[in-house]
């Protein structure tokens, strides 16, 4: 089903919030600005085993969700796009 304007706006906002967090907190090299929605964050080393701890804390706090057990799989945090989808799904 096609998403309405509100849903698309909210999704964009979520992605932007996540992107800003990653850029400001997880990437020490500030020259890296080409962080598109599909960049593979784990494979490229943007999110490592330390970074995932910060990211999980941020997502739980910022989006008022709980992440545990089966949710805690790397696939959910592979890119801004998958993180955003995961957050939307948990927020429902």
């Amino acid at each position, binding site marked *: 089903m096609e998403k309405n304007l509100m849903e698309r706006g909210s999704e964009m906002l979520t992605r932007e919030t996540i992107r800003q967090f990653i850029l400001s907190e997880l990437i020490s090299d500030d020259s890296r600005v080409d962080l598109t929605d599909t960049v593979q964050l784990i494979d490229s080393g943007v999110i490592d085993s330390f970074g*995932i*701890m910060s990211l999980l804390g941020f997502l739980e706090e910022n989006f008022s969700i709980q992440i545990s057990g089966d949710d805690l*799989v*790397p696939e959910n945090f592979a890119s801004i796009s998958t993180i955003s989808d995961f957050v939307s799904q948990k927020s429902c």
Partner: protein
Amino acid sequence: MVLELTDEQKIWRETLVAFSRQELDYDMTAYEKGDLFPWEAWRKCAEMQILAQPFPEEYGGGGVDFMTTMISLNALGYACKDAGLVHAIATQILCGLQILHFGSERLKQRYLPLLCRGEKVFAQAITEPGSGSDALSMRTSATKKRDTYILSGSKTFITNGPIADVVIVFAVSDPEKKSLGGISCLVVEDGMKGFEKCRPLKKMGLSTLQNGELFFDNCVVAFEQLLGKEGQGAIIFNESMEWERSLLPAAHLGTMERILEISVTYAKERHAFKKPIGSYQSVANKLSSMKMNLELGKGILYRCAALKDNRKRAALDASICKLFISESLKQACLDAVQIHGGYGYMSEYEIERDLRDSIAATIYSGTSELQHNIIARFLGV
């Protein structure tokens, strides 16, 4: 967030303190000399349901919250002089928490009742000869072959390892991936072909705690022994560290309280130049620092427990907790030896044992240096 103990929790702590003084007050000398594990004490703790505390009743657990579990370890750290036994118990509980939170129903039913009753000893195998604090750079491999994993490699310093019946082994299941996604956890049982345990390593302290090497030589592990999902190892490791870096400091804080009490008593009784040594500022300052660290430690410890009980993330808090309390304990032990002078240096007074034990606290479960790194990463630097 309530950071106070309930009346029930206070009573439970008093009960465990009395239990420890009555049942766990064995002469440590013989155990220390032979690096022996105190099996009788282990069984008594199991009968007291200490190992079973945070697990649901359906698996034979006590069904209590994380705060109460922490209080139990705190009480043992305070009243039981055998820090090795307390550490072994904490490790057993941590393994159970991993199985409870990530294991399949089959794994939970198979292992948790045995773990709660203390009938089987559990260990988690992470550290390797070439990877300590950088734990996830491990080399032990878990190669998929049909419906099994072939485990190959070695682990070292593994707590409970030499006496373990069940080991949660962290291994690389996909070398192409980074540690996040490339590491998996397998539950291995003693007696499996290709799995070998070595005798305990001799240590500076924590003599009764059994630490040793584990070897896996093409050990075939059934797919159903996978803990969590494939590639979930690094995340399970992180989760586990949140519990570990709260439970172990709980025991350390108990020990710190005992050290403070002993030191205050001695500072009042011992005279020098016709005055109690506690009346000298250089001694009193050591005692007031101990008290300050004890109270500050309590604050961060209770916060960690409350976060976990509220199903919130506590990675940063747990690192602060572990770093602050372990370093405070080491300093408290050093100061206690100093306050006791020559007597403090003698084995008979037992403080020197606490000092030796305390040094390990700043090394295991991530060194103090690593905790600083984690805290810095949370600051975005």
